[in-house]
């Protein structure tokens, strides 16, 4: 198992380091830069939305789904307060009460 973990570590590090390697002969132009400026919202949202909507059976759009109601509340709190503590506390709190 240790070997697998070491190989995984190499892969993760490789993906993080590759484009910070100086010998790669290219420059990121302004258009590419603008494209990449959307990477954080795109990737993070692509991670969290499926957590909320997908369960073992598939896509779950039911309002009884505690993930969904807790996510809606988190979004509202995040939008109003811009505060990570309030958002996670409100979301997790409601989630635990509902489930």
């Amino acid at each position, binding site marked *: 198992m240790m070997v697998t973990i070491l190989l995984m570590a190499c892969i993760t590090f490789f993906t993080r380091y*590759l484009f910070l390697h100086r010998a790669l002969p290219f420059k990121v132009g302004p258009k590419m830069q603008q494209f990449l400026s959307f990477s954080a919202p*795109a990737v993070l949202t692509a991670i969290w939305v499926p957590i909320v909507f997908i369960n073992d059976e598939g896509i779950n759009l039911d309002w009884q789904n505690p993930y969904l109601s807790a996510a809606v509340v988190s979004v509202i709190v995040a939008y109003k307060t811009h505060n990570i503590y309030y*958002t*996670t506390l409100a979301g997790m709190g409601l989630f635990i009460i509902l489930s």
Partner: protein
Amino acid sequence: MLPLCLAVLPWGILCGSLAVQNGFSALETQAMSLLVFAGSAQLVAIELMAGNTPLLTILFTTLIISSRHFLYGLAIRHKVIDQPFRWRLPVSFVLTDELFAFSHHRKAYRTKVRLIYALSAGFSFYIAWNIWTLLGIVAGSLLPDLTHLGLDFAIAATFIALVIPGVKNFATLATVITAGVVATLLKSQGFQLWLVTAALIAMTVGYLISRWQAKEEHTQ
């Protein structure tokens, strides 16, 4: 970064306890957080390794899940590339989703002070992640089943807190909606490259809208 360190507490506990309950030793579990340091890749790999999945499949899956870091590296390349290797190496080691979400300042990584700031943030996150994993190892060996507590919702809540305050214009809003819809559809279909595909489509939508808006402003 401190709020983020606390916000990943449930996620770290989930990682630690899930591994222990799937037959990993404490040492292996901690080594994973110390060396791999990537929550989502760790969670998926734990399930795969517990199911005796072939090594190549595990490594390929790790690469797929981690490939979003290529985008992060590209995005901060122009800020970091002039720094010496001894700075770029640690920056890349702690280049997580959370640190990347925090590095949007125009001058991020560009001065020594900002580099030290980014590295302190990155490594405090690293330390926190490992302490939470340790807590998960302890909790996982004492308590029967933590994995059905819905600790994974904490991941969603953290990322909502990171994304929503940044939605300040129509292009970003369109990016976020596209990413969510496409990722959910692709993942529910069992498509392996769902994360990167959804992200690239969403980024294209955001980019095209922002270009189109710039042109509109220009012609007015």
